[in-house]
């Protein structure tokens, strides 16, 4: 069997990713995580002196804290196996990427292990997140200067 015939056979036998099902699962999982986040946000606004604008930071911190506990107890990877992108895209997924790397590299010490590797997976989110924010801000600034849109 030559490479080409094998490659065809391989694609035939390897199970196809159930994209539609995965999308539904991701939507449900992501939706639940965001609903919890929204609930926490209302909690901070209702019981504490936060506004809709300022409640974001404590909400994100709380969500990451929950993700940290779930990761540490080995539950987050199970949620992710079900939810896929639904658990990877929200801030809890970012938290999981950092925390799992920190746990993994704990044996190499705090500086070279935890510190040096914590952003191994999450680092690219920060790099490209900051870069795309810069590009978007640049476009908006130009549009404002040209008088196309206002702030």
């Amino acid at each position, binding site marked *: *069997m030559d*490479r080409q015939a*094998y*490659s065809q*056979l*391989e694609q035939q*036998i*390897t*199970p196809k*990713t159930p994209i539609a099902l*995965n999308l539904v699962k991701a939507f449900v999982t992501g939706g639940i995580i965001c609903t919890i986040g929204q609930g926490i946000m209302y909690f901070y606004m209702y019981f504490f002196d936060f506004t809709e604008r300022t409640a974001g930071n404590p909400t994100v911190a709380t969500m990451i804290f929950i993700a940290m506990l779930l*990761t*540490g107890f*080995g539950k*987050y*990877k199970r*949620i*992710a*196996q*079900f*939810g*896929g*992108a639904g*658990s*990877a895209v929200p801030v809890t*997924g970012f938290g*999981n*990427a950092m*925390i*799992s*790397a920190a*746990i*993994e*590299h704990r*044996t190499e010490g705090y500086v070279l292990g935890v510190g040096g590797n914590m952003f191994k*997976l999450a680092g690219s989110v920060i790099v490209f997140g900051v870069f795309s924010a810069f590009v978007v801000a640049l476009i908006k600034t130009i549009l404002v200067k040209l008088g196309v849109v206002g702030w």
Partner: protein
Amino acid sequence: MVARGVIRFGNRPTIRAAAVAAGPTEKKNSPFSHQFDRLYDSDLIGQKTNEQAHRQLIEDACDLALNKAGKTISDADYLVCGDLVNEMTPSNFAAASTGLPYVGLFSACATSTSALAYAALLTEVGAASLVLAGAASHHSAIERQFRYPVEYGFQKPQNAQWTVTAAGFAAVTPHEPGYPSICQATVGRVVDYGLTDPLNMGAAMAPAAFDTFRRHLEAAGTEPEDYDVIITGDLGAIGTQLFRKMASEAGYAVEGERWRDAGKEFYGGDPAFFAGASGAGCSAAVYFSDVYSRMMEGEYRRALLMATGALLSPLSFQQGESIPCTCHAVELVMGEGEGR
């Protein structure tokens, strides 16, 4: 010389004893667990790091194999083994604590049979009266080496495989009647069909398995029916199908119970482990427990062990390289043996 890469052992080195040590996931989920000699309740096996636990697995499996052979470490002449961690440090540290002359072999998950073939050669030429040969893997130590942190959440596809925590070792001695002996080994070529998905290793390895299978049978002048079992290492559910398809297209009859795959059977087909098990310890654990005991009981008279290995690294994969694979075959016979 029989054929290129094929070694026939006229003196019939013997596997005098074999032993397996395995982790808690295997204790709970593997249908072979009752045949393993030692099972641990913790992934860390009382050590501080996964890598130390990995080393402990190797040391314990060596001790168990020696005990079962009624020997001690001072009776052994060589240690031949390997694992998947960077520079094979678990094997290196285990070798340091045994104090034995040591050859580290890297054949990825095909190390169980490459070590067995190497041990048989040392015995065949009269260089050893007892060689410890085997392979090991530790789930958490290997996952971080090749993939993501263990607790990182990502969705694995159905063709992914689960690295086992297990070590299997055999005590190879000059011929002794009443034990399985090694009559032929085929050293695998590296076969690369250009597959690049590290989560579909079975598919990458199947062509290497078929290449070695055909070379071994052609050199031996045998047919699949001559074997009681033809057991590949860790092709898993997908790779097994592909391997059999290749064999059947080449005119071999692939039906029947004699066709087995250690990786596919390792967790009893539980979908939580996707396409099955993988890792250097996977084939070693099944060969040196289930297959060995079936040979001792006389159920298998002739067995073909074909451990498969994907020779990739995280670097080669990230640089977009394909996955080169290999498969080393060892043929075991019980009793009659002389036959051919």
